[in-house]
């Protein structure tokens, strides 16, 4: 206690003052002052004693809680920050027994904010990790059902729009399959650039209406400019995808293509415009229409609603799909031009008969800012032998093989145009139109899909950034080679809550 030695000094000074003063009238005042000071000192000492007693009691309680946690083998990570920042210390001048628990708590590094938004650092490392996702509930009123346990009732699947009398009229579907969970990490390195990892899941793993099987959407890592793993194909400009409630997306948009790939991205600047080029090798997968003279299948069925059953996927590919892309990223939006080159290959599983043909295509896509937050999004693509990229969910085949085994590439093209308008910071709408077409050789089955079109119009409300409620109207058509078509009208209500 530093106050104690002051008392004699103070007393001496007051005594001197009293002695040199010609007047002794202040005598009583000084005595009163000393008495008051003495009382205050007593009170302070009492307060210090009570505080130290309370600290010792809390230390004992903390020790007891930690012992219990160790006993049940539970980590104490959640208490790390508090234990470190609020570690009890004794009031000066009062002895206290040093607690080993307090020292241990001080040794533990605190959990700190990560280098990227929404992350925290793993204690003792430079790695920032983050976890997030959203819950999304979709309620769909379909003018016609795609059929029992089919994806087409849960999202727009062009190839499953019924043609003819098939499908229940006025069907309703409820599901929360688009709900997602993601994990990401970020680790800076001094020599090779940043290391990023990312994984994302949803629950579309099984098209059965009431099955909620997790599905891997993304799983990739990158160091510097090199990325490897499963994610959006390089052929697709994700920023150009329209803001639809329907996760199936618009006709003419390369929506559902996520596949394993390796990719190099090189940023550069040209005339003051930030740009980058990308080169990727991606997983090949040839989808073929094969005449029944070559192998037994449903390829020549007259039923117009067989979806993928007309096609064969031999898994006999020998070369990866090669994709190159150029991105322009000016302040007013972004535009990309991508090209794909690939070999479409057929191998008969029984006879070993082989056919292959090289094909490719180009895709121009972008998002251009207009007024305020409004923007236009677009895609336009053309190719021969790249139909797998051109429209979603088995709509077209890459190539066809006739009864003699000759292979011919399918010419496929399409486009999408979307305008997003923000009524204010909470309300927004998008209107989207898209189409895609596949031109088959004349010998192909005439019940194959020839052209698909769709219109989406929605109104979405986000009262806070983590919540969104919306309604969307969809009008979509599928036209066969023989000229028949099917129409789907849908009203979809969605609620989405992010975390």
């Amino acid at each position: 206690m530093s106050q104690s030695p002051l008392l004699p000094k103070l007393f001496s000074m007051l005594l001197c003052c009293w002695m040199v003063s010609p007047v002794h009238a202040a005598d009583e005042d000084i005595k009163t002052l000393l008495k008051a000071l003495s009382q205050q000192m007593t009170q302070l000492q009492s307060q210090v004693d009570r505080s130290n007693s309370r600290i010792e009691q809390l230390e004992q309680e903390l020790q007891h809680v930690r012992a219990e946690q160790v006993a049940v083998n539970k980590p104490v990570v959640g208490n790390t920050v508090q234990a470190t920042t609020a570690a009890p210390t004794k009031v000066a001048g009062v002895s206290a027994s040093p607690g080993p628990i307090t020292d241990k708590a001080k040794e533990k590094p605190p959990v700190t904010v990560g280098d990227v938004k929404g992350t925290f650092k793993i204690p003792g490392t430079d790695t920032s990790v983050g976890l997030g996702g959203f819950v999304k509930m979709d309620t769909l009123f379909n003018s016609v059902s795609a059929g029992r346990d089919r994806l087409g009732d849960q999202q727009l699947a062009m190839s499953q729009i019924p043609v003819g009398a098939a499908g229940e009229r006025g069907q309703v579907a409820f599901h929360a399959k688009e709900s997602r969970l993601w994990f990401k990490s970020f680790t800076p390195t001094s020599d090779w650039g940043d290391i990023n990892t990312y994984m994302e899941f949803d629950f579309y793993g099984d098209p059965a209406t009431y099955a909620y099987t997790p599905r891997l959407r993304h799983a990739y890592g990158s160091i510097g400019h090199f990325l490897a793993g499963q994610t959006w194909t390089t052929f697709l400009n994700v920023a150009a995808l329209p803001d639809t409630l329907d996760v199936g997306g618009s006709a003419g948009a390369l929506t559902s293509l996520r596949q394993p790939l390796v990719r190099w991205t090189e940023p550069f600047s040209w005339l003051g415009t930030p740009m980058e080029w990308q080169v990727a090798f991606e997983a090949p997968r040839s989808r073929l229409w094969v005449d029944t003279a070559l192998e037994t299948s449903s390829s020549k069925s007259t039923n117009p609603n067989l979806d993928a059953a007309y096609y064969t996927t031999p898994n006999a590919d020998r070369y990866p799909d090669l994709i190159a892309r150029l991105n322009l990223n000016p302040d007013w939006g972004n535009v990309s031009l991508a090209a794909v080159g690939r070999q479409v290959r057929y191998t008969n599983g029984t006879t070993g008969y082989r056919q292959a043909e090289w094909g490719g295509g180009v895709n121009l896509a972008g998002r251009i800012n207009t007024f305020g937050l409004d923007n236009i999004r677009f895609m336009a693509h053309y190719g021969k032998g790249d139909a797998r990229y051109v429209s979603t969910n088995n709509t077209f085949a890459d190539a066809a093989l006739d009864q003699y085994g000759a292979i011919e590439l399918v010419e496929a093209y399409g486009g999408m145009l979307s305008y997003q308008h923000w009524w204010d910071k909470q309300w927004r709408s998008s209107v989207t139109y898209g189409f895609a077409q596949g031109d088959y050789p004349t010998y192909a089955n005439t019940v194959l899909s020839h052209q698909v079109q769709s219109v989406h119009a929605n109104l979405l409300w986000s009262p806070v950034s983590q919540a969104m409620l919306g309604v969307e109207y969809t009008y979509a058509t599928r036209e066969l080679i023989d000229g028949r078509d099917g129409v789907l009208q849908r009203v979809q209500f969605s609620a989405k809550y992010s975390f």
Partner: protein
Amino acid sequence: MKTLYLSALVLILSACSQNNQYAHLEGGRSQTGQPALHAVRDNRLHELMDRMDSLMQERFMTEQQLDVERRKYSRQIGEAARDLAANVETMIAQLPRLQLNAVEQTTFLALAGKLREEMRQLQQLAEQNHIDAIPDSLHEINTTCTSCHALFRKLGG
């Protein structure tokens, strides 16, 4: 299909016919009737911040792609803040034309200096990618702008 094409056209046209939501932000008009340069750049800052906020509604980009977009907007906010800070000197150069008395001149210069310092801080936050701190910084800048306009806009004509 004619119905389909027609409905698509009508929907697109109706979406295009709308007002600029940032019109209400355009203060600080100069004597030419056009928004003053610093007001235009201030609006640019708000627009960039709104664009960054709107990324929360994206659900097709991966989180890491969103981080790249956030960094892009953060860089643009930093550039806009730098331009606006440089514009403060132009505002100070207007001082003689305003015919202020000594006390008013001192206040004007103090507010201009405060704005310059706030812009410098905003630029720093944006360059260091401290995205979460940017809204508060923008709010402080707004307060300074509003104070200055309330005190001097009538005087400046």
